[in-house]
């Protein structure tokens, strides 16, 4: 179920990126029992569905975030050598370039959307196990 919802959500994404996310989500779905065992949580199919879906959301965020992070930080390092940016063929990459500005804006807007959708606390986590444990904690808090 979660994989179908994820497919539906990611449908407008370019294939190469969509494939990365769905492949990742499928791998989590297949190794669900191991993930629960490692986290010492009794297996629960409904909970796994939520874990898989949220792992897909985290992956979408990571795709955008790491590219911005690497570019921005690399430009900072480059500036310590008094160099203002990269030239890649005819492309110019610096903090004023449209590519950088667009990526920055996109990342900010995605984070805002994720926050509005009440998912920010999940994308801040570093592993699938942590997502599982947080979901479980939230579920037990609601009971």
């Amino acid at each position, binding site marked *: 179920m979660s994989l179908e919802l994820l497919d539906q*959500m990611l449908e407008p994404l370019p294939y190469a990126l969509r494939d990365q996310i769905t492949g990742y989500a499928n791998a989590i779905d297949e190794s669900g029992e191991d993930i629960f065992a490692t986290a010492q949580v009794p297996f629960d199919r409904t909970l796994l569905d939520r874990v898989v879906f949220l792992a897909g959301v985290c992956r979408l965020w990571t795709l955008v975030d790491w590219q911005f992070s690497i570019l921005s930080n690399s430009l900072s390092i480059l500036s310590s050598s008094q160099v203002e940016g990269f030239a890649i063929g005819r492309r110019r990459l610096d903090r004023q370039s449209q*590519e950088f500005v667009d990526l920055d804006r996109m990342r900010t807007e995605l984070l805002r959307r994720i926050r509005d959708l009440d998912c920010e606390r999940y994308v801040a986590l570093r592993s699938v196990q942590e997502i599982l444990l947080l979901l479980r904690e939230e579920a037990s808090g609601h009971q």
Partner: protein
Amino acid sequence: MDINNVVIGLRSFISQYHTQFLRLSRTESQLLEIGALMLGVEHYRRQGFEVNVQNKVGNRFKLKVSAKGKPFNFSWYSASKSDVNVEIHGNLPVGSAYGRDDGVYVVDVGVVEAGTLPTKPKERKLWRRMDNKLVITFIEAKKLVVYPMLMAQFIGMVHEIKPSFMKRRFECAVCHFYPALVSVGYLRGTSANIREGFRKRHFRVNVVPTFDIHVSRLAHDSTAASPFEPIQALQNLPARLAVSTDGPITADDIPF
């Protein structure tokens, strides 16, 4: 959190930024290589090397982002400290260690002895690859989660390009880092155990997951250490003494 709302909300975001996502899918491998290059550069800077950009175009670093082209037509970094002088290149073709197969491997980041690229037009025209003996170390960058087969492939690269790092006894100045696999993903499954196994077998390699976090740390904290081994605590040892980082120095660790 309502999952149906998340599906609708993020789907509309993806549609709205479709052009941007298309660009991301085209540029992600370039950004990986930029990040790996910066890690290599910062490693040397943090060992006290003087680091400079060479062959700039205007005030920009002309990046080599594919196997095509020759390194002297692009920018690179030089790093110097006392009698150690190296160059750090992106997408560098290097000859195989075996040598008799005429093998050429293009590494994402290559560290080589400085001043060894040809300068005369005729030599430049004939240049095909960096002589393996001039290659000191290298970095491979992946966007993937670090899974066991990726680690095995990387060990294969080290074996073909710089096999001396796989030997119990080897010779390399401690200021250089071991060949490194860096990834924006994390260590998956048994990968952490496999990495530990490399250490126990004295494979001098670095496997660095979530390297984007290290790039961020190095960019914002001038005191942050390089994520690469050999670790900084060993840097006070004589420069030409090669050491294992996972235990006391033994006779086996002393070069020939």
